């Protein structure tokens, strides 16, 4: 991509390994998170002296830790110092990922499922007749992939490859990998002191990555919201003081929502870190996963890093967010919705678009066969959850009872019951089956006639 041209180092001290100057602002040095699409969302990479918080509120998956694994692997592979703060840091490091082709499994194996799909899709595309005026346009891309421009900036990792023990041992020997244990008896300040000691002893030649894969997991003890916020803030101040370091942390799943930290909790985390994203997986909600079958969750951007400018680099340079084309001249369109999916070999962040079936080619008046009558079901899923959440703090909030006036319909029977009876079970009320409506689609027996 042309926007990531490497700038010549003009009279500046050589950059640490694995970093480069941000194309947006020459005073910012950025480094890769290991995931090219996440780098794009952040505006080229994570700037040094910035902290990144990844919130993954889904209890049943570990996307936050996955992002941290990429972070650690990228740091080790590009020769930077990596510090892992975990209750068992070496175990976390041993489960890390690595580049393809470095293990015994041959990289040129039979292609994986998604590669086969990609091939089929590209073949299919060739058969579509593209209107002549659009033939020159590039294919519609939903994500960015790492280009071969700067091989050492962002390395392609393979989720199926585990880090070889030889590389791990070598990193430990050379003090490239520094594990820090979290003891249940200490509180957050001890961790900050240890990081500070590490950073002050370090020479400025190497960039340092601080990784906290599971902040708030049981080994950290019983953390209260002010403690967590103070920790985030102290970490940020530390990074301001030692600007050749950057940090990436991932909060424990139960701490990623407002139900734990009180109203506005997620916003507080966003204010106290330089960059924050929230990856809400579809795992718990079947309606969302059927609406977006090819993605695993939605990404919400809370904060973007802008360490030396007012405008975050991402606003101008992110192709995924799509604001750059709109800024200034042509007038603004909104930014793209973002989602992520975890494939067998990699984790990618993509733009989220409606499926073909919801698009403009077919005017649909029946619901698709795959989409069940989910509206009543969806209401059921979400309403009991919010009731239960407020129930937990019964003492502090007034209990509110809402009653629907017209409670005779089948559709609203469910919500009324759920509202009135606090201890309602979560079973789905079967909705009245809808009559299939007529489907209108534009098809012609003579495709040549309407070939435009």
């Amino acid at each position, binding site marked *: 991509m042309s926007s990531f041209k490497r700038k010549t180092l003009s009279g500046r001290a050589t950059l640490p390994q694995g970093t480069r100057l941000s194309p*947006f*602002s020459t*005073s910012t040095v950025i480094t890769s998170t290991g995931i090219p699409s996440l780098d794009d969302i952040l505006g080229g990479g994570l700037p040094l*002296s910035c902290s990144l918080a990844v919130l993954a509120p889904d209890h049943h998956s570990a996307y936050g830790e996955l992002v941290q694994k990429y972070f650690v692997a990228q740091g080790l592979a590009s020769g930077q110092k990596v510090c892992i703060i975990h209750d068992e840091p070496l175990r976390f490091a041993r489960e890390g990922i690595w580049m393809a082709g470095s293990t015994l499994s041959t990289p040129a194996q039979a292609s994986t499922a998604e590669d086969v799909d990609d091939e089929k899709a590209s073949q299919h595309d060739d058969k579509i007749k593209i209107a002549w005026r659009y033939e020159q346009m590039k294919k519609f891309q939903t994500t960015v992939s790492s280009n071969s421009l700067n091989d050492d900036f962002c390395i392609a990792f393979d989720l199926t490859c585990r880090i070889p023990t030889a590389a791990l041992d070598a990193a430990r020997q050379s003090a490239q990998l520094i594990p820090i244990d979290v003891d249940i008896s200490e509180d957050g*300040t001890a961790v900050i002191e240890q990081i500070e000691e590490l950073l002050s002893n370090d020479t400025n030649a190497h960039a340092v990555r601080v990784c906290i894969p599971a902040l708030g997991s049981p080994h950290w003890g019983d953390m209260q*919201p*002010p403690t967590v*916020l*103070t920790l985030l*803030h*102290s970490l*940020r*101040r530390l990074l*301001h003081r030692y*600007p050749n370091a950057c940090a990436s942390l991932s909060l424990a799943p139960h701490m990623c929502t407002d139900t734990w930290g009180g*109203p*506005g909790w997620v*916003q*507080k985390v*966003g*204010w*106290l870190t330089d960059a924050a994203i929230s990856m809400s997986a579809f795992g718990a909600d079947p309606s969302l996963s059927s609406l977006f079958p090819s993605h695993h969750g939605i990404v919400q951007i*809370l*904060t973007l890093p802008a*360490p*030396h*400018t*007012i*405008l975050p680099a991402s*606003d101008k340079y992110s192709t995924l967010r799509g*604001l*750059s*084309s*709109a*800024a*200034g*001249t*042509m*007038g*603004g*369109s*909104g*930014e793209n919705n973002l989602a992520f999916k975890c494939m067998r070999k990699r984790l990618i962040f993509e733009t989220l678009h409606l499926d073909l079936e919801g698009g403009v080619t077919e005017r649909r008046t029946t619901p698709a066969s795959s989409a069940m009558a989910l509206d009543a079901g969806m209401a059921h899923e979400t309403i009991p959850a919010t009731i239960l959440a407020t129930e937990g703090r019964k003492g502090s909030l007034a209990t509110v009872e809402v009653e629907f006036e017209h409670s005779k319909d089948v559709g609203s029977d469910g919500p009324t019951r759920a509202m009135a009876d606090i201890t309602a079970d979560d079973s789905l009320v079967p909705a009245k089956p809808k009559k299939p409506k007529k489907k209108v689609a534009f098809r012609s027996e003579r495709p040549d006639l309407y070939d435009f």
Partner: protein
Amino acid sequence: MQFPAPDLVSSRRLLLITDQLPAPADFLLHRFLHLHLKQSKTAKCIVLAVSESLERWKSVASKAQMTSPQNTNVAHSEFFQFIDVFDQHPPSQNRGEGHENKISLKCIYDLLSVKLSDSRTNGQIPLVILDDITSLEWFGVSLLDLSRFVRALRTLCVKMDAALVVRHHIITPPEPDALLRHLLQLCTYHIEVRPLASGRSGAVSGEICVHLGPSMKDTNEHVISRTSALQYRLTESSAVFFDKGTSTGVL
């Protein structure tokens, strides 16, 4: 469109700036600082910082072409002073029992009064910017301490003929929290920076409204209502302001 109007920041006023996470108001603070320093060569500016670093203030100032001689060494310039709220400890604090990062509001107040009285002979209005009083509340400083601190700051600035700008984050948009209610009682003007309801956009980053504080006489000076809010778009070091519907894409 010029924002702020030149006499919005004037002596003895408390300007409360509230913002939300999708539309942060740091650009406004930087803008006030730049305008104040540009206004006269000897104008004094003190920043009490909780979240942003000195590095950022300096680099944004340099990008906004504030490279007049007094700004080349901004950290030691007598006209721009940066006080990190977390670096002030009372000298008699027993290090054994307290945390390193414990905030002492009394210390900050004393330091500020010393600095402001130094500049009294100047004849220029000093500008005091308190970046982010909300974080102090989040770290556990009690609401009582904070409201007393803000009241003390306000009276200090009134005594010293200084202008005070306080930034507050709103995290539960429709409902004002307790600290906001205290601040609203004290302020002269309430500048509200809000995101667009439709989310981020390339042409408009957010909008600004100005409301009167409770102590002001019935005047419509500087007031910008929500319906005719001033919209802005962030640039690298500042922002471009325009009325609703007159952004570059439309005209």
